[in-house]
């Protein structure tokens, strides 16, 4: 901006104009710095997000066969669950291999409660 002064005039007003321009330049620099910081932050955020998304996608693809290897353990149908409770209730007995205070019955008390 220093070489861009209005030529052919020499009334001293050029000095005031130069001061104003310097002020504007400083503000512009501040603004550029501010915008730059903003842009930088959003770029990093963008890279991070995109990066994790990519990793997630890659992991899902790569680990899919392992997921298929894990056994699927579904909840027993109500009829089967009721049958199992009934079997436990029907065959409940004391365990003579344990101390008098312990018995299979106490282990399966929950089964009895469920059945009732």
């Amino acid at each position, binding site marked *: 901006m220093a070489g861009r002064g209005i030529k052919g005039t020499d009334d001293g007003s050029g000095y005031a104009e130069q001061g104003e321009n310097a002020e504007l330049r400083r503000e512009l620099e501040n603004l550029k710095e501010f915008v730059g910081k903003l842009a930088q932050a959003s770029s990093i955020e963008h890279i991070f997000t995109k990066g994790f998304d990519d990793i997630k996608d890659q992991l899902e693809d790569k680990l899919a066969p392992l997921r298929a*290897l894990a*056994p*699927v*353990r*579904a*909840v*027993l*149908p109500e009829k*089967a*669950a009721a*049958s*199992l*409770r*009934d*079997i*436990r*209730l*029907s*065959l*409940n*007995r*004391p365990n*003579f*291999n344990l101390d*008098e205070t312990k*018995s*299979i*019955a106490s282990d*399966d008390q*929950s*089964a*009895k409660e*469920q*059945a009732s």
Partner: protein
Amino acid sequence: MILQLVQSLVDRGETRDNAAGLVLSADPFDLMLRMEQVWDAANITQVSLARQNLWSTGDFSNLPVAGSLPWDHLGYAYVLENTRAVQILRRVVREYRAGEALGIPSPGTQRWLNATEALLFGAANPLSTWLSTSSIRDDPEAVRRNAYWRLFGLDLAFGDEGNGSPKYVKANAANTGFVTLFEELLFELWQAMSNERNTSGANSSDDDRIYRIAEQLRYELGTRRKSDMLLREELAAATALGWADLTVSIDSPLIVDLRAQATSAGDRLRLIGDRVGLPAHSQSASFFAMAADLSTFLRAIEAGIVSGPDYAWALYLSQPPQGAGANPPKPIGSESRRVITEWAAATGKDLKARGKPVDSNRPRLVAVR
């Protein structure tokens, strides 16, 4: 039925050993009436009003019958009978009834003798042990052998009392493939158990195979159970062997009279066998250890608990898996594990290893030309 009756008394507030003593010294007629009550509760055949009125007069009639099929599976009777307990107890009864070679029986032992003659050996009683014997099939042991053969395709490990070949009707329709399927299922269950916590190595468990073998076993057993066949023979057998089981489970008056006190059922039976000159099976401890668990295991198979590969876990996990819903029933993994261990010990077969490993060097199939 016998051990379940003891449990009913425990539920009423008796201590375990008191309850066992009450059953062992019960009047045989009360035990017969309890069988009627249990049969009635299972709702298999129409029970007449006269029978209902009769069992309601029994000493145990005020005890509720738990569950819909409240007696042990025939498999329970089969493994316990292999201990030779019934034949040994027959000699005990004969010796006590015929003379004093075993000493003078105490009053408690005399009550036991009365009940044993009625429950195991067909002594005259107003009710026979749930109608599984008659003049056509008068030997209760032969009736049980016939049932074991039909349901499992198995004979007992010994002959008659004199070690002669046993005499019983060997039906043509029998599940002769049962043992192969059963042992294959136990092998697969062991694979699943040993890989239960395996998260990184090769996993040889196969839920689909477990389901298919369990289904095949269910079909085999179900074929012999059509229209509730073999159920009353099962009740009679489970009652007889339950009586033998309870007899040697505690140091009862009989055990004391015979000086056969010990810490386990197997040891008590061995000592009694020594007294009467008939040795118990060398693997009796294994038979006693697995009998109750085998009963639960086979009932679960027959009930079709595993109706798909996704439910195979019910046979090999000891606790319900995560996400099994609210209030799930306890799976039977603990019972299966006990059966695997004791069946392997009793039969001498290593169920935890394949008989013939897969040969990876085997040539490929020849192409069809």
